[in-house]
């Protein structure tokens, strides 16, 4: 069975969203968005995808605060975040490298991360560039911490980290990543070489599970069409959508 990296990741993320009733996806996230729509389709709508920027696949209408209000109530089960830097404790940096506030490189800013990382139970980190520039030992600025000391109200936190080389799962007790699977073509050595933080690794690390045929079929039809509303170029170039 042939499949692309995008299709593999969509299916891998979809597995992580199992049992999530409300899945929210932020801007510039075509792969997480496709995964959320896939889960919605597979569950017959029992899992609900909310795609920021979509007019159709966004069941909310009460303005900017609504997502955060819902997350604060525990009504958002999964969300996606990235990071200019991410470190081994899952601290994320969306602000800048070097000294603050006059940095070497300025990123856009923390957006909702300092809130959603605390309130959403399954935050999936998605950052394709797998390099020591991104995956550092310690972030220069903590937009949102990967864990909090006891006593800090924190129903949410990191769940997994997906890169162009591999998938890590996050251990909330030990505040550490554990390698969970390699992407096609990637090796453990390559991951180690390009990761600036220490992580756990099982003895026999295998590949990320291949996409299930039924999911692949769905991706090529309904999901490609649905995601094309928000990400037309992604649907066309990466999922082969010709609609």
């Amino acid at each position: 069975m042939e499949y692309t990296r995008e299709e593999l990741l969509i299916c891998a993320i979809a597995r992580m969203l199992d049992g999530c009733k409300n899945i929210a996806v932020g801007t510039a996230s075509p792969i997480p968005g496709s995964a959320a729509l896939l889960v919605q389709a597979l569950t017959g709508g029992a899992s609900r995808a909310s795609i920021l920027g979509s007019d159709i696949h966004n069941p909310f209408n009460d303005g900017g605060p609504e997502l955060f209000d819902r997350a604060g109530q525990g009504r958002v089960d999964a969300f996606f975040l990235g990071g200019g830097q991410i470190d081994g404790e899952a601290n994320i940096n969306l602000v800048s490298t070097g000294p603050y506030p006059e940095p070497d490189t300025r990123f856009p800013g923390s957006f909702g991360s300092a809130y959603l990382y605390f309130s959403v139970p399954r935050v999936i980190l998605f950052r394709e560039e797998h390099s020591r520039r991104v995956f550092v030992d310690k972030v220069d600025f903590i937009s949102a911490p990967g864990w909090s000391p006891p006593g800090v109200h924190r129903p949410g936190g990191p769940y997994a980290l997906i890169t162009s080389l591999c998938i890590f799962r996050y251990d909330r007790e030990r505040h550490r990543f554990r390698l969970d699977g390699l992407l096609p073509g990637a090796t453990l050595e390559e991951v180690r070489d390009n990761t600036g933080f220490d992580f756990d690794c099982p003895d026999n690390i295998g590949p990320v599970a291949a996409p299930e045929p039924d999911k692949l079929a769905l991706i090529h039809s309904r999901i490609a069409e649905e995601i094309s509303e928000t990400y037309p170029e992604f649907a066309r170039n990466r999922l082969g959508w010709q609609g």
Partner: protein
Amino acid sequence: MKAPESYISADEIASRIPDGALIGVPKEDGGVAMEVTRALVRRNARNLRLLTVPVSSMQADMLIGAGCLSEIETSGVSMGEFGYAPSFRRAVQDGTIVIRDATCPALYAELQASEKGSPFQPLRGIIGSDVLANRADWKVIDNPFAEGGSDPIVLLPAVRPDVALFHARYGDRYGNVWVGPKRECVLLAHASASTFVTVEEIWDGNLMEDERMLAGTIPPVYVDAVAHAERGAWPLSLANCYERDGKHLQSYVKAAKTPEGFTDYLKQHVYGEQAAA
């Protein structure tokens, strides 16, 4: 339909926003008053402080590039799929602007406290971040309702912008403006000391008397002046009216990567005869 006589122009709005003012603006798809933004650049506004609700794109970047801002409070400034915001990045890296980094719901909370006339609003999360560590104006208290043990929670102070500025879909001859489901604009108008609005179209009738429009209407008690500005959000989008002009945004990002390119852009699209070509 002709604009009501009480309407002023976008340039007049810009002239009524004084240097040094704290201006609250909505995010890219929330109805951005780009025509007034250009007018602020034209009138050479200085030392403005921008509060983005909660993020911004070209509006913040252009005001920064033109030297209109001394300070910005934001959760993010980005050109989205067109890349980083060049003037913003340059100004922060060079230290020519004061940046107050925030996180989206904290900015809503600051405005919601102002809307209510409350001194503060609580917000979960944020604790342990460098966002909090760099905000001396945010406080942490122990939740008085916690049962057993310490439960720290952040309090955000009320922030009252001097000016709320946005672009709305409709205005009528009675001073009402209609923003539909853009509740951020309602929040901005309620929370700010004064509110200036540009409107895309003139609504024939009274928006407050139309049952279907009522819920999305901001009444004149909150609105200090209205200007009629067709395509007033260009090159950004206006919901159900026009999409953003991606080609133009791309060319802006390219130009703004150097101060010279930015100056050329202003000459052509801001000082030029026809801005919204």
